[in-house]
């Protein structure tokens, strides 16, 4: 292949030279070039190595179907492997590298695979590397992956950003070629909201590669004029560099826009890629048609390329595919390519056509009817072809061969929701399925052949689409298009008797023999053939190869391509980067951060935060001199137990419930009775699931006759609300009850410790003496001389005399500051979730570590809470199942080490002394552990078989991960104040 830049012509800007590097060597192209056109202009014919055999490969296409010219573009964090050189726009300083070769593209050690190719047919790996099985993951697979492969991703972080966005329109036009532009103009002139998207750098599609005239102007000029008009209209959005890759439910289309992939240094204010979700009332698919390769021996030699691609290179980029070329075609379209080559001064040696009757051709090239190419010469570049006509063979020296095996309408998008394309003997192609759910196909994608017809078809299909949504439109009139010969094609699925490997799928190195082997070995169904041979896989998804493979399968199985059918079409049409799919949601925006109203207060006091779902909760508050978290936590616990501490509990779920039937509703939601809860009182509540297991716990306070305030755990705040919605809307719609989350309205502060009342008394206007505001009192109070109305609840998680004070969230920081200032003389201490956790374990209070979806109230010592009087509540019936009340169930107990210096971990299992670890010997497991600063040693909570009956018994805490056997004593779960006296103090 001795491709070169022509002296004139093309749509490139020869005044704007662009420097780039390929495999470490500097080259120059022009603005408007792709990497592929620039490489060809520099005479670079060898661009890659094939996947399996490491055969030298050249550029085959001029678009997104390219199977060979896959390169790695960019450096460091901007490294992007497997880019098709044919779609990479050239920019100054672009750095590209070839892939799948070592040590170099010219000399590749992997080329030895080509010599082994007789042994490397379809299924080779499956058959050969089966034994011993243990070696597959450790040896065979890594070895095969190293030898056969594509590019490698960078481990460095991507410095650029990505985003996702939504768009809405009446008509989405996919493809801005002749049919697409006409469809968009038709809709735009009717006033419809139009989005037209095209994967290329600008609108025009095949018009940019055409020399003919339409509407009185050369095709590229016509395209520019229509595009400019569309872009100027307020109701039209023109998306270039945008591939519509998927069609999803509700007429939502996925598209990726390469916003800044074509610039040297992306602007920081813009994303490099943008993922569009386009909601369209109607869609015109004008995606054009893909030229099929021909399958003959040596058809992968660098220099053999698609005829239409060669036409694009010469007309659009001013690049000649070779100095002396031949054309091999079974259809009339490649004659236009030959004509365009000759018009640009390129010597066309011959047009080889297997048909007896060939189209008229008025150029210089020799037209050879009844002829086939049966072999190619050269190794890293084409030097000649062998042509067979009748019984005679002839060698023709050429450095490029342009092939055309017919045209495949690009129907992928129209088939992604299950519809199958229809085979047409007339077109020798699969045509799109019938219109459905607002999707219609226009132009070459619908099997329309000529330029003029495509334009008219696009316009008329747009009129059809718009009529479905009540918009009257007139078809856009583009003016006359230059005549062209009628399209004709005769199937030629492969050239029998040719020499050398005849490739069907270039990217996966699948050749004709592989397909025959697949059929012989029982993998003749098209979906099986694909998996067995890998034809149609990888980055190009068989854009060039699929229909040829189907044609060959049909021949081998003695049936028709229509009978064979296609494999399943799925998104994505072309590869989409993970960056685009993630959009802005990465790094610190991976998930939203939920900040408590006391976040800034906690930060001011030096809190270490812990992520709990979306929340950032203050975990502990280190003070100077404290180097380990335990030091801070121990201090905080002792401060609360001996004095007073305050803790941010704003993250608890809070739900306000109102309505005449609120009491009845809540009585059915909780398993314990709450109907008779008096106004001004709070109660601990336990919710079950329908299956009888505990769902969540919290408190319920009655603020007024028909107004309640519920707290849930932080983790299940949303879940409990949804559960209640389901109950209210579906189970008991007759109840008069309404509720909503007030989690964000209230900042809630726990004030705990023997001096908590002393502290609170100084800011609460109301009488909160033990008599006036006893344990489980709840009510509205005033703060600091009537400055603020708040809610106070005398409830305790720590086991100490404690309160929870709820104030409007905007006042949270001010009230916490006031508590700290007023409490300073008494040594008030902020404490975090770690200290809270220690104190609830010391007190034997459960959390989701214990109520983990496998326990019922009886298991945690709350069996007597379950109402036997209520006619019904959620979980009542299933709770009575056999097995949920068995004597051998795991039940909550405390656990303390025999040797106070011993420690054990959550998750460790309980064994009887002397028992060997086994499922049968398992007595239960540890659910929570902590160091108790009050007791001076570690303690734990555990679920143990018949636990409460075994208090005082010695067991072994077996930890296989730490390889530990710790002796421990089963204890009452309430290590601190088991009588609960402090709560009532």
């Amino acid at each position, binding site marked *: 292949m001795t491709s070169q830049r022509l002296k004139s012509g093309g749509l490139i800007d020869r005044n704007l030279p662009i420097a780039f590097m390929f495999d470490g060597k500097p080259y120059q192209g022009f603005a408007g070039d792709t990497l592929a056109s620039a490489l060809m202009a520099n005479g670079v014919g060898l661009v890659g190595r094939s996947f399996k055999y490491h055969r030298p490969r050249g550029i085959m296409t001029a678009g997104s179907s390219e199977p060979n010219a896959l390169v790695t573009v960019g450096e460091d964090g901007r490294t992007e492997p497997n880019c098709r050189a044919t779609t990479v726009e050239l920019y100054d300083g672009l750095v590209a590298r070839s892939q799948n070769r070592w040590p170099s593209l010219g000399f590749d050690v992997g080329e030895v695979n080509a010599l082994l190719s007789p042994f490397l047919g379809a299924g080779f790996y499956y058959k050969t590397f089966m034994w011993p099985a243990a070696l597959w993951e450790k040896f065979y697979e890594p070895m095969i992956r190293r030898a056969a492969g594509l590019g490698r991703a960078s481990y460095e972080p991507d410095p650029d950003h990505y985003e996702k966005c*939504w768009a809405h329109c009446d008509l989405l036009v996919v493809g801005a070629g002749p049919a697409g532009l006409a469809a968009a103009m038709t809709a735009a002139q009717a006033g419809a909201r139009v989005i037209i998207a095209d994967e290329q750098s600008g609108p025009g599609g095949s018009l940019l590669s055409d020399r003919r005239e339409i509407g009185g102007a050369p095709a590229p000029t016509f395209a520019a004029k229509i595009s400019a008009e569309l872009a100027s209209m307020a109701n039209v959005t023109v998306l270039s560099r945008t591939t519509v890759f998927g069609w999803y439910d509700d007429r939502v289309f996925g598209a990726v826009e390469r916003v800044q992939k074509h610039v040297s240094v992306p602007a920081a204010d813009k994303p490099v890629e943008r993922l569009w979700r386009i909601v369209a009332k109607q869609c015109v698919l004008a995606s054009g048609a893909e030229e099929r390769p021909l399958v003959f021996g040596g058809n992968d030699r660098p220099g053999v390329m698609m005829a239409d691609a060669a036409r694009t290179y010469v007309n659009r980029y001013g690049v000649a595919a070779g100095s002396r070329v031949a054309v091999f075609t079974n259809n009339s379209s490649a004659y236009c390519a030959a004509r365009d080559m000759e018009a640009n001064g390129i010597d066309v040696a011959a047009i080889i056509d297997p048909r007896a009757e060939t189209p008229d051709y008025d150029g210089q090239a020799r037209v050879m009817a009844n002829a086939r190419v049966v072999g190619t010469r050269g190794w890293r570049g084409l030097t000649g072809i062998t042509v067979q006509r009748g019984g005679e063979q002839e060698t023709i020296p050429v450095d490029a061969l342009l092939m055309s095996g017919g045209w495949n309408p690009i129907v992928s998008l129209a088939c992604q929701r299950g519809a199958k394309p229809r085979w047409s003997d007339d077109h020798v192609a699969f045509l799109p399925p019938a219109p459905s759910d607002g999707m219609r196909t226009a132009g070459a994608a619908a099997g329309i052949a000529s330029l003029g017809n495509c334009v008219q078809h696009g316009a008329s299909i747009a009129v059809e689409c718009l009529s479905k949504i009540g918009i009257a439109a007139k078809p856009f009139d583009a003016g006359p298009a230059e005549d062209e010969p009628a399209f004709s094609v005769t199937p030629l699925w492969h050239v029998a008797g040719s020499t050398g490997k005849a490739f069907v799928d270039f990217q996966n190195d699948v050749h004709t023999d592989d397909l025959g082997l697949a059929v012989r070995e029982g993998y003749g169904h098209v979906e099986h053939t694909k998996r067995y041979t890998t034809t149609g896989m990888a980055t190009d998804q068989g854009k060039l190869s699929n229909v040829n493979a189907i044609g060959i399968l049909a021949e081998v199985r003695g049936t028709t391509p229509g009978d064979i059918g296609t494999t399943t079409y799925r998104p994505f049409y072309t590869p989409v980067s993970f960056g685009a799919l993630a959009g802005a949601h990465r790094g610190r925006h991976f998930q*939203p951060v939920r*900040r408590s109203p006391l976040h800034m207060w906690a930060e001011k006091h030096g809190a270490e935060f812990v992520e709990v779902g979306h929340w950032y909760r203050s975990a502990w508050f280190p003070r100077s001199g404290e180097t380990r978290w335990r030091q801070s936590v121990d201090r905080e616990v002792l401060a609360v137990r001996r004095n007073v501490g305050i803790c941010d509990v704003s993250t608890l779920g809070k739900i306000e419930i109102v309505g005449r039937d609120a009491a009845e509703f809540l009585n059915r939601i909780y398993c314990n009775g709450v109907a008779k809860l008096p106004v001004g009182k709070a109660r601990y509540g336990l919710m079950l699931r329908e299956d009888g297991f505990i769902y969540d716990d919290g408190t319920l306070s009655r603020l007024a006759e028909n107004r309640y305030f519920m707290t849930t755990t932080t983790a299940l705040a949303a879940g409990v609300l949804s559960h209640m919605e389901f109950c209210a809307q579906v189970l008991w719609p007759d109840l008069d009850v309404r509720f909503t989350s007030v989690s964000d309205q209230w900042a809630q502060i726990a004030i705990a410790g023997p001096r908590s009342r002393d502290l609170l008394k100084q800011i609460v206007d109301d009488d909160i003496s033990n008599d006036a505001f006893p344990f489980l009192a709840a009510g509205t109070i005033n703060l600091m001389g009537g400055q603020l109305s708040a809610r106070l609840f005398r409830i305790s998680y720590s086991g100490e005399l404690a309160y929870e004070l709820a104030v*409007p969230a905007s006042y949270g*920081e001010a009230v916490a500051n006031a508590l700290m200032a*007023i409490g300073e003389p008494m040594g008030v201490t902020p404490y975090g979730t770690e200290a809270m956790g220690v104190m609830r374990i010391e007190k034997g209070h459960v959390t989701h570590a214990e109520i983990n979806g496998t326990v019922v109230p009886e298991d945690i010592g709350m069996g007597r809470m379950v109402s036997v009087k209520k006619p019904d509540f959620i979980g009542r019936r299933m709770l009575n199942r056999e097995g949920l009340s068995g004597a051998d169930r795991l039940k909550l107990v405390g656990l303390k080490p025999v040797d106070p210096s011993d420690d054990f971990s959550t998750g460790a299992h309980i064994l009887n002394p002397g028992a060997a670890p086994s499922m049968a010997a398992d007595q239960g497991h540890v659910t929570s552990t902590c160091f108790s600063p009050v007791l001076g040693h570690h303690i734990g909570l555990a679920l143990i078989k018949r636990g409460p009956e075994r208090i005082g018994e010695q067991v072994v805490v077996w930890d296989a991960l730490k390889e530990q056997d710790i002796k421990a004593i089963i204890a009452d779960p309430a290590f601190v104040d088991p009588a609960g006296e402090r709560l009532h103090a």
Partner: protein
Amino acid sequence: MPELTLSPVHALAHVPVGRFGAAENASPLALTALAEGTILQILGAAPDSIAPALAEFGNFVIRPNAPAQWLAISDKPLSSSELTQIDAALTGKADVIDQSAGRIRIQIEGPDVRAALAKGVAVDLHHDVFELGQSVTTLCGHITVNITRTGDDQFELLVMRTYAVDLWESLTEMVLEHGIECRHA
């Protein structure tokens, strides 16, 4: 008791303000943290039946929030006694839940406002589709918001207080290519 004054702190009190993003845009977007006034969640009544009662307590606008739920919004903060009076005035018609501190209002405006919001919002906000005064509860990115069109190119986002800072930060990053002026009301 020491003399201390309790003052409210706006959820967005600490977010950065000023001009961000593309400097060349002469008409950047404006992002404003609106003052915390009164936001009442009304459960169970149609706006027509509650508007007269609310009018006595301030200049309320009533926006749909969810089926049979409304948001009554006023720029003026109300005292707890006024809230009690509203509750009494609506007895039998609707239940009132005070969300004045639970929701934060953010205003965004500018010629490119729809393109900017489309980066997080799936709802069609086109002039002809989403009318002046119309509201919808939807997602902006990962965060639930109630969006109201308050002007030709002006929208108000009402967000749960604890997500307000995250939404603010997301909005400022979403609109960098348009340029944005961030400020407090």
